[in-house]
């Protein structure tokens, strides 16, 4: 192998020399590919190694597609960075804090809204937020909702460009409590270890 500090290729190292040859071959150098195949005629492990390196190259091709997708989604903004002095250094951490503060106001259920509104849930809501609030209130009334609704967790945020604002991606979670007459468990069964579904029923006083 070559020296990682100097990147000097050690021509006396057969393994390093083969790596360079394989690297050229998988990058499309036909002469190198022919040389690898010629060596493979006497040493089949070389062909095995070539196959593995080609599989890795396919992995890299898939990486390329991902990078291209990501790159092609980003356009140059119409003007320079409007918040350059404010955002530099602190980066999007500041944006995240502001976004969370905003989300706490906009997304979280309105604690001040009376539960009385639950009885008159209208079939059509003005917005998904209204529908969510109504769900939370109704779920509390039924005892389904366990504890408080957790504040939204910010996953990421980014500027959309062209003055269109920010994309804020969050996770919003509610913890529900349900009562079920039975539950299921997937477990290995028999010598083959095949997995099957087991029904678990609650014990009664008599069983105990």
């Amino acid at each position: 192998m070559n020296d990682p500090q100097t990147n000097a290729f050690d021509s006396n190292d057969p393994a390093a020399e083969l790596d360079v040859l394989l690297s050229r071959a998988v990058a499309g150098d036909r002469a190198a590919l022919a040389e690898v195949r010629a060596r493979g005629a006497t040493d089949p492990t070389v062909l095995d190694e070539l196959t593995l390196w080609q599989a890795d190259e396919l992995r890299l091709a898939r990486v390329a597609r991902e990078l291209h997708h990501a790159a092609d989604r980003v356009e140059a903004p119409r003007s320079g960075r409007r918040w350059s002095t404010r955002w530099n250094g602190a980066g999007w951490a500041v944006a995240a804090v502001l976004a969370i503060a905003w989300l706490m106001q906009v997304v979280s259920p309105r604690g001040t809204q009376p539960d009385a509104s639950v009885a008159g849930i209208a079939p059509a809501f003005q917005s998904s937020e209204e529908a969510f609030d109504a769900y939370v209130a109704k779920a509390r009334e039924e005892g389904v909702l366990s504890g408080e609704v957790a504040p939204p967790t910010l996953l990421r945020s980014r500027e959309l460009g062209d003055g269109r604002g920010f994309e804020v991606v969050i996770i919003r979670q509610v913890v529900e409590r349900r009562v079920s007459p039975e539950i299921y468990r997937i477990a290995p069964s028999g010598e083959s270890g095949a997995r099957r579904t087991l029904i678990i029923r609650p014990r009664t006083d008599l069983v105990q």
Partner: protein
Amino acid sequence: MDGSAQTHNQHSGFAAGDRLASEATLSFAEARLFERAAAGERDALAEVWRANRRWLAAVLAAHAPRGVDLEDLLQDVAETLVAKHHHIRDAASLRGWLRVVAINAARMAARSRGVERRAVREHALERGMSRAAAVRVDGDREQARETLELIARLPPLYAEPLLLQSAQGLSQRQIAELLDVPETTVETRLARARRMLRELVRELEGQAT
């Protein structure tokens, strides 16, 4: 573009994605485009960005820490290009300047964002959100992400030429010019990068079986 790069592009199934990055030397058209951008033509500047953004994504992927959003970093680089392109001396120094901007953005992310983002993600995972549920992707995309995770474990010295060649179709000569190192150095770094990746994939596949 030399013969090996052309063959590589055919091999990997990718056309040369961006014009600026696929030519060893800056063409007249590219230089003209940059001049128009420097003169304040907004559309020309947008075109300069589109011509460079794919190879910049490769540079960012090689230098950014795991868990950082690549699109955020690309946005940073695009903003810097728009805000500061008048500082670039000439068209010939554009790519080198963009590469430095990208590496700085990646390093900044490592300091200020990476830890926070990982913490948020780990928090989400702790709260019962499986990775598979968090990001539903098909097999190819999942493998691409998995491979990017492995590449992130390589030293950037090796990851960058590997991504520039394998993912972007740049020739060794083009990479050497971009990194400002001899071609022989690029060749040995590429071989070493592929060997390192092979060992990491072997390790990963060993864990899976």
